[in-house]
């Protein structure tokens, strides 16, 4: 019987209060990672996608807020009857969003060195509290008119913070609101927006901006520490920029140039070679080795159905925005 299939434990993790032992139980077993390795390689070996901590009504609400009314266990190549009450549909791309939320709470929000001055030094919000704030964030960004003058994401987050009474933030002490926006709330946004960790990463969100400056204290010397990019904060919204996609320049018409003869074989007959990329931002870019990159949607549904998927990665597929609530923005509209 899975250790996590315990109604008292699930209640405590979702709604509190829960002890440090409860968190330890979730994170580790026999001194090693339990069913929640930080970056499980795939669901066959890690079994991660079949373990659900988030209370099901909240999971349903979250997915519905992102993708419209849907069942977290529903369809998309798999019969609902084959998925248990606590199961995830491993064939659904929506499963990514739920796994990202749960992992974020377990490994970030419940880490002593993550946004401690914002979330609390000794106690942290429950999983439900974080998800409720994410639901508020989705609704807030949904309410922004598409024709609104774009401004930096950090400004939107500051407005969101000022206009909402968030459940996950500490109430016992005042805190630095700028730091909350540039760290914790930016990480929340990256999960809601389904952004990769950074523009060069295959990992899923968060963008890792909310760690305390002294996070080095938690890591051993053998693990390399990278630097998170803060560029997300200055990207403008509404618009495609915040999603990592550059604005598409207008096509300039030149009557004296015929493009008809410039087919792939003609181009490859010369100095250039085509290469596939799973990053749309690289589409039709040329590198110093004369490689021309062509965008290819990275992940296919059949791959997920086979189970050989790491749901903590980013699918690097536009399919994740196919029914996303922000698809209506010009941000991603042209991509889907």
């Amino acid at each position, binding site marked *: 019987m899975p250790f996590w299939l315990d109604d008292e434990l699930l*209640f405590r*993790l979702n709604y509190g209060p829960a002890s440090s032992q409860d968190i330890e139980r979730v994170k580790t077993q026999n001194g090693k990672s339990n069913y929640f390795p930080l*970056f499980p390689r795939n669901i066959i070996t890690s079994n991660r996608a079949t373990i659900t901590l988030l209370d099901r009504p909240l999971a349903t609400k979250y997915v519905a807020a992102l993708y419209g009314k849907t069942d977290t266990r529903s369809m998309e190549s798999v019969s609902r009857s084959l998925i*248990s009450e606590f199961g995830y549909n491993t064939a659904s791309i929506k499963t990514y969003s739920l796994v990202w939320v749960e992992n974020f709470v377990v490994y970030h929000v419940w880490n002593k060195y993550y946004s401690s001055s914002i979330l609390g030094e000794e106690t942290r919000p429950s999983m439900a509290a974080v998800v409720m704030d994410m639901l508020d964030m989705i609704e807030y960004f949904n309410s922004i008119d598409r024709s609104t003058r774009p401004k930096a994401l950090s400004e939107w987050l500051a407005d969101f913070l000022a206009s909402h009474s968030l459940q996950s933030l500490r109430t016992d002490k005042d805190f630095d609101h700028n730091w909350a926006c540039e760290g914790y709330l930016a990480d929340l946004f990256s999960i809601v927006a389904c952004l990769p960790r950074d523009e060069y990463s295959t990992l899923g969100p968060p963008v890792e901006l909310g760690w305390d400056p*002294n996070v080095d204290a938690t890591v051993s010397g053998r693990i*390399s520490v990278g630097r998170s990019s803060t560029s997300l*904060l200055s990207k403008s919204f509404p618009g495609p920029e915040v999603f990592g996609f550059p604005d598409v320049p207008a096509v300039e018409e030149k009557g004296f140039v015929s493009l008809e003869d410039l087919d792939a074989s003609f181009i490859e007959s010369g100095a250039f070679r085509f290469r596939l990329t799973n990053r749309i931002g690289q589409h039709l870019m040329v590198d110093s080795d004369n490689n021309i990159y062509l965008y290819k949607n990275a992940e296919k549904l059949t791959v997920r159905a086979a189970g050989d998927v790491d749901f903590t990665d980013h699918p690097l597929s536009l399919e994740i925005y196919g029914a996303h609530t922000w698809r209506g923005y010009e941000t991603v509209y042209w991509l889907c």
Partner: protein
Amino acid sequence: MPNQNPLPDLEAAGTDEVSWITKKDYVSIRSLDFYPDNETKAETKARLKHAVRIQRESYGTGSKHSG
């Protein structure tokens, strides 16, 4: 105060162990006192208990939900 020291790149390090997390790193979880769909605390607890019981029973019977 943007973060200057983000998560270690465990993927690059080729490990999924969490030995770098020690007991002193743990925190506790505070109470929310707010439940979905206007449920009371007792109703939420009862719903979870029922769902878990159904799931645990399916493990015992080896049903299709036992995986």
